[in-house]
């Protein structure tokens, strides 16, 4: 049974199966308690973890999201089982750190990563449309660089233990969410858990973790990637990953309808703002940064579980970006972009353009 399932996941059907699973489970997680249209949002959840650790002090977005720990552990176990655990590193880690950093800034200006953009669309939030258009523009700019020889350099095989770091962090996060330790007087020290706002909304830990592990497993086997989908379609007319995204949106649409979570319109959507320009620009930045780094935030988490040290550095860059986004008033709120969000988006796009132009290597 496992062998047959694995063959299926490795085939053309793999991304579709993963997309259907994510499309059903993400709205269900919202139904079970996660914030609106945020059943799974890799960027938002990384931001919540940054808050829980006290890296930022936005009191409404602090929670140790078990889904992301599940992504890393599911992928770790799956890659071990199928001989795909390959520790590797050395492909411009510092650049990847800041690509992760700015990808997060862009995502928090839009209020969601590509995963959440598709979920928002499937739930009738029309503000997702300029976001997805921006995402596509960012990816197209990234493709321009890829055709012109953009390259962050090769990675190299590393010692086996290098890949244990992120799974170990995942285990630590699970311990934190289960035991909810406080490292000082209540309320003044980590670990922080929001008492109100999105951070206070969460599905039961066991369900969140189980979904995270399952999706981590499925995505590791099928290489599900929300940015690679558009990239491969545009670059090579390859529908392989794109079919997964279509399946994801359709499954999420049906599940949201079924659960009564579908609401068409621009106004009053959960954790969203209506400023089309910055919905788009935030995602231009994210799409470009993810394309230069080789995959969407979910994919970076999955690869970090497989032993990819550079993807792990990207993930840590996202964590740092989330902290800065809230400490420096860059992140958007339902009222619109933060005071310095638009400026930071422009800085991020300039950074990515420099990286795209300057990091070219003859191979």
């Amino acid at each position, binding site marked *: 049974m496992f062998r047959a399932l694995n063959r299926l996941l*490795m085939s053309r059907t793999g991304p579709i199966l993963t997309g259907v699973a994510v499309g059903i489970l993400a709205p269900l997680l919202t139904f079970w308690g996660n914030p609106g249209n945020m059943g799974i949002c890799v960027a938002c959840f990384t931001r919540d973890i940054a808050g829980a650790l006290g890296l930022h002090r936005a009191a409404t977005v602090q929670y140790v999201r078990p889904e992301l720990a599940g992504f890393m552990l599911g992928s770790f176990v799956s890659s071990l089982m199928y001989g*795909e655990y*390959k520790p*590797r590193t*050395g*492909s411009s880690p510092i650049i990847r750190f800041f690509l992760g950093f700015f990808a997060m800034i862009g995502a928090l200006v839009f209020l969601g990563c590509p995963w959440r953009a598709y979920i928002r669309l499937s739930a009738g939030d029309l503000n997702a449309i300029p976001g997805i258009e921006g995402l596509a523009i960012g990816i197209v700019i990234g493709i321009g660089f*890829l*055709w012109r020889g953009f*390259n*962050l*350099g*090769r*990675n*190299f*095989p590393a010692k086996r233990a290098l890949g244990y770091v992120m799974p170990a962090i995942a285990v630590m996060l699970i311990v934190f969410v289960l035991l909810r330790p406080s490292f000082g007087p209540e309320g003044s020290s980590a670990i922080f858990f929001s008492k109100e706002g999105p951070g206070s909304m969460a599905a039961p830990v066991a369900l969140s973790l189980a979904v995270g592990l399952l999706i981590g497993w499925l995505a590791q086997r099928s*290489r599900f*990637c929300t940015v*690679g989908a558009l*990239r*491969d379609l545009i*670059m*090579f*007319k*390859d529908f*392989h990953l794109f079919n997964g995204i279509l399946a994801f949106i359709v499954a999420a649409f049906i599940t949201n309808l079924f659960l009564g979570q579908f609401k068409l319109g621009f106004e009053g959507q959960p954790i969203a703002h209506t400023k089309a320009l910055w919905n788009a620009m935030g995602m231009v930045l994210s799409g470009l940064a993810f394309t230069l*780094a*080789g*995959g969407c935030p979910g994919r970076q988490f999955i690869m970090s579980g497989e032993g990819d040290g*550079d993807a792990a550095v990207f993930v840590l860059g996202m964590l740092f970006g989330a902290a800065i986004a809230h400490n420096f008033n860059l992140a958007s709120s339902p009222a619109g972009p933060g005071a310095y969000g638009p400026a930071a988006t422009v800085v991020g796009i300039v950074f990515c353009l420099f990286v795209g132009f300057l990091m070219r290597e003859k*191979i």
Partner: protein
Amino acid sequence: MAEAVIVDARGLSCPQPVVETKKAIKKTPYGEIHVLVDTMTSVMNVSRFAKSNGWMAEYEELPEGSFKIILRK
């Protein structure tokens, strides 16, 4: 028979192994191309791309854990 063209795409992020393969196919419309990669993901991506362009693709695992994809047309 001409010698196989070698494309060393080991250690490159997605989708660069496919980009390098595409460049090689453009330069060598017929014959044999060997693409070296080090993850199963790249094996599948390069093979899928080559097949969709009318090439035959098979791969073998090399002793140090990387893969050689053999493309023929």
